[in-house]
């Protein structure tokens, strides 16, 4: 599906955004943004978190109404008051999280809101199931469509969402980070489907943080920064560094310097382990996992979804009930199954899902940061506000948290800044071991590089870090040592020069061959 110059793209825009502005409570989210989407093109939309991508999508899909400017479809002015109006106009959207109804049947989800009906006005289930089955077969889903959607894998659900979006006679499909929760093979299927859309002259607006995907499928790209459009043009004419530099608004040289994180390897072997987790076992999840982390060392945990990466981290911090195994911190055993004991001993964990297990959106930045450290900061149950403020200011400066004030609600910050708030929360508990579960998921390139650099700094100060990441690049660049998990067991360990993408992938994919790196 490589894009050559000869793919004919109709120059007539199917959807035009003209000078669109949007403000929230005096904050400008979009500032006179214009761009056009042509029939049959795959158009990338990139920008840091907070650049205005989400707002722009919401304007295009009728969730928000623009304060200024207008939308044009095939040259005619249109306004969408609700998502259904946008859908009826042929604009369909696939969201980052699957927005379907898990308890409803697969067929029910495909047709929801536009079910075929018999002449009595009742839902025609047999026709509905038949058409849903045929439709989904095109997307590589051959399940019984009468089963609840929730029984499919996340990737399968995403495909159903896509099938649904396209079957509404869409002329424009907006995809907001559609691959963020897909397995590699599911990504391939998705990209193949996008190729088909292209041949059907459907325009695709593709939002992603993944450079590889953007360069594989996009014809043109629009870059947003701070609510403004800074670039629109053919993607092939921009190399990656240039693209990133436009997103960040920095010089190319800066990025080369900051963007690449590199760590020395093999310099920790002599030190005594700080964290020694042995034989962690939990039914169906962990089958005797052992991991050690030395001071100043970054240990990566690699493996596919469900391999036991997050479970290992949660077991170490006491959030996963264990049948067996011990956790030793600096040689002393930590009480099992007790998060409080682990925290007091100096182990903190940044959870994978920052929305569900991390930030408390209705609380302020200050409250979110000091939450976990409150027992430490209080004397006789009273917390000194001045002490809180000192700590909060220090972390906001150090982690470069962009917020109007410490009193701003966390929900109003961008994803990257929310993640930094969480990082600050755990750092102010003064841990000696930090467990990071997908610390850069869903945050933009700039914030990602900053978070990665922070992790490196912290390790250099002697903190032991256990890093979980689905991004091979992050693991390979960041970790001194990589432990590979599969089905809840350690299947390989790579040290120093062995830590390469190929070796890690080989270890993950090896079928019952013991340690592939030997």
């Amino acid at each position, binding site marked *: 599906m490589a894009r050559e110059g000869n793919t004919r793209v109709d120059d007539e825009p199917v959807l035009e955004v003209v000078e669109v502005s949007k403000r929230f409570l005096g904050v400008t989210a979009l500032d006179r943004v214009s761009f056009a989407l042509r029939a049959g093109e795959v158009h990338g939309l990139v920008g840091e978190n907070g650049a205005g991508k989400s707002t722009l999508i919401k304007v295009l899909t009728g969730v928000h109404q623009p304060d200024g400017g207008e939308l044009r479809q095939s040259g005619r002015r249109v306004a969408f008051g609700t998502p259904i109006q946008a859908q009826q106009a042929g604009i369909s959207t696939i969201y980052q999280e699957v927005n379907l109804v*898990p308890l409803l049947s697969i067929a029910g989800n495909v047709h929801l809101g536009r079910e075929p009906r018999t002449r009595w006005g009742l*839902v025609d289930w047999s026709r509905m199931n038949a058409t849903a089955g045929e439709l989904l077969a095109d997307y590589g889903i051959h399940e019984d469509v009468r089963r609840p959607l929730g029984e499919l894998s996340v990737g399968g659900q995403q495909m159903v969402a896509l099938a649904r979006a396209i079957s509404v006679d869409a002329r424009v499909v907006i995809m907001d980070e559609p691959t963020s929760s897909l397995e590699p093979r*599911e990504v391939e299927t998705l990209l193949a489907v996008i190729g088909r859309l292209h041949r059907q002259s459907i325009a695709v607006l593709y939002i992603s943080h993944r450079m590889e995907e953007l360069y*594989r499928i996009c014809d043109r790209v629009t870059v947003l920064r701070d609510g403004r459009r800074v670039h629109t043009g053919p993607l092939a004419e921009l190399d990656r560094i240039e693209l990133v530099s436009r997103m960040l608004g920095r010089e190319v040289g800066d990025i080369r310097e900051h963007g690449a994180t590199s760590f020395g390897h093999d310099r920790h072997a002599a030190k005594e382990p700080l964290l020694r987790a042995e034989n962690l076992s939990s039914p*169906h999840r962990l089958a005797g996992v052992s991991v050690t982390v030395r001071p100043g060392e970054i240990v990566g945990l690699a493996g596919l*979804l*469900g391999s036991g990466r997050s479970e290992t981290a949660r077991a170490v911090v006491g959030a996963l009930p264990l049948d067996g195994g011990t956790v030793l911190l600096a040689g002393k055993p930590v009480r099992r199954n007790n998060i409080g004991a682990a925290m007091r001993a100096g182990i903190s964990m940044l959870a994978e899902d920052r929305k569900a297990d991390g930030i408390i959106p209705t609380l302020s930045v200050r409250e979110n940061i000091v939450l976990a450290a409150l027992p430490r900061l209080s004397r006789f149950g009273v917390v000194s506000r001045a002490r809180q403020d000192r700590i909060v200011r220090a972390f906001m400066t150090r982690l470069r948290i962009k917020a109007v004030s410490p009193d701003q609600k966390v929900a109003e910050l961008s994803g990257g800044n929310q993640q930094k708030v969480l990082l600050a929360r755990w750092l102010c508990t003064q841990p000696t071991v930090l467990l990071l579960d997908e610390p850069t998921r869903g945050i933009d390139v700039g914030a990602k590089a900053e978070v990665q650099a922070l992790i490196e700094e912290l390790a250099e100060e002697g903190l032991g870090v256990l890093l979980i990441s689905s*991004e091979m690049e992050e693991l390979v660049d960041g970790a001194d040592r990589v432990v590979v998990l599969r089905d809840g067991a350690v299947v390989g360990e790579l040290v120093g020069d062995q830590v390469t*993408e190929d070796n890690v992938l080989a270890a993950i994919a090896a079928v019952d061959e013991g340690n592939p790196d030997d």
Partner: protein
Amino acid sequence: MRPSTTPRAADRAAAETSRATPASAARTRRQLLAGVLQRQGAAVVLVLVLATAWVSFPRFGGADNLRDLALQSSFLAVIALGMTFVIITGGIDLSVGSVYALGGVLAAYGSRWGFLGALALPLAVCGLIGLVNGILVARTRMAPFIVTLASLLFARGLLLAITNEGATTYQIHGGSAFLQLGRGTVLGLGVPVYLALALCAAGGVLLRHTRFGQSVFATGGAESSALLMGLPVARTKIVVYTLSGLLAGFSGAMTAAYLQSGVTVIGVGTELDAISVVVIGGTLLTGGAGTVLGTVIGVLLRNVIQNVINQIGTLDSNYQSVVSGGFLLAVVVVQRSLARPRAGR
């Protein structure tokens, strides 16, 4: 770094994931079992209880007793039908007990204007209360619990006000055609039984075979998704609460016709009965799943147990609540274990 660099490894990795691990297989089996228990548990228990009662109590299987059982069940079934819709949207309607009593009093009051008056007055007022509930829940996004608690108090207060704190009991004139609604029989069975069956059948079709029904499920299953898919979420909520008010009022009217008067003391705690039979019948208290048939089975189960306890004679009839309470708890525990693996992903 993407797998495109090492396609073979990526393919093998993908193949690896698609193979179900023993752990996930065990989880699926457990979920399947829990699912069957949750959906069919009430039916299985009902059959067991019926069989036991039939064998143990000669009077249980008698025509009179069964006729009575069916009649008593029909009043609650109509209320629980409305509650089923409300709970599937993820809401709750605490007002139905008061609205039920109010409906009875209004029917008796309205019977002075004949059959139509006796029917139209409770339906209009109770439907309006339901409509207001629905509008408040859907438009102001207040918690259904609070909104319907307020209308529980409102309806009960209105009832006491129009009956001089219960001192005035409105009688239905002995010759009124309206009495047939509660006391009439067809082929030996009471008219309320036929009405309840017809309403439940219509409700079942509405829930399972219409677009409205699909949007009821979607609203309770994933409200934000339903909104993004352009479903009329607010309208759906307004309709289900209106329906619940109408059905509670109608059940009250049938009760008044049966009792020949508007009794003010009925319906206290009926909302809890309705909620419990709906949940026992397999409707998820968290919304998104449920059936009308399950609710009917839940109603029958409750009343059969009540009936059996009465047959034993030596047991206090309050033990019915003890049994229902225990069963409800068991069902909710099973629902919880069903919901956990889904939520815990």
